[in-house]
């Protein structure tokens, strides 16, 4: 199953420009601390790690805890260095793993 992801990367940037990247992925981020209708704890189901790479080089990494809101939203910055692909990988509980890519043209 693929979660819906929204990614905002500028299509074009000048070399050396600091660009802002926004990402959001659909995920419940169930904290593991809530009690369900049957009185039992709802098991934890969160995304634990988010990594962004630019042409394979890591540019940003975040470790999430259960205190990150549902549908994790992250904004960060990077220096536009080269034309290519920015890839985003989310991994988490219950084998969750998803990668999305966005192209960028640097001139």
């Amino acid at each position, binding site marked *: 199953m693929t979660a819906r992801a929204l990614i905002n990367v500028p299509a074009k940037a000048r070399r050396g420009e*600091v660009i802002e990247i926004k990402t959001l992925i659909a995920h419940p*981020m169930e*904290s593991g*601390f*809530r*009690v*369900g*209708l049957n009185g039992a704890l*709802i098991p934890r189901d969160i995304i634990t790690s988010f990594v962004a790479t*630019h042409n394979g*080089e*890591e*540019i*940003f*990494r*975040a*470790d*999430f*805890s*259960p*205190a*990150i*809101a*549902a549908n*994790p*939203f*992250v*904004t*960060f*910055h*990077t*220096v536009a*260095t080269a034309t290519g692909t920015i890839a985003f990988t989310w991994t988490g509980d219950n084998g969750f793993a998803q990668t999305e890519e966005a192209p960028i043209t640097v001139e």
Partner: protein
Amino acid sequence: VLKIDSARATPETLQAAIKNIVGEAPLRRGKVAIDVPPLVENGNTVPLTVSVESPMTAADHVKAIHVFNEKNPQPNVIGVKLSPRAGKAQFSTRIKLAAAQKVVAVAQLSDGSFWSADADVIVTIAACVEDLQ
């Protein structure tokens, strides 16, 4: 119906979580700015931006930013790894807050120093531990 949660983070667990990152190094106030609304209605999604004053050069940059809270079930919120490739030491996300409490951000710089800031948030509808009843 409110559940009494003995596993809730306390100022002591917050201090322990910070010490876990900082170790014996001195933790200084400054350089770090937390942008979070002082009063939020819904603790399930609280916008948070953390920025650190830094030129982000190879010689002087922010290596990591950690965010902690005082009263959620666990003290850790998010840990972010940065490099000079970031260009700007800033990130934003949305967090859950289980009660009105203090949020603390700690930045680790490339020279090994640690800097922090904190912000108080009042929450009128809590998150994380509310039950589906």
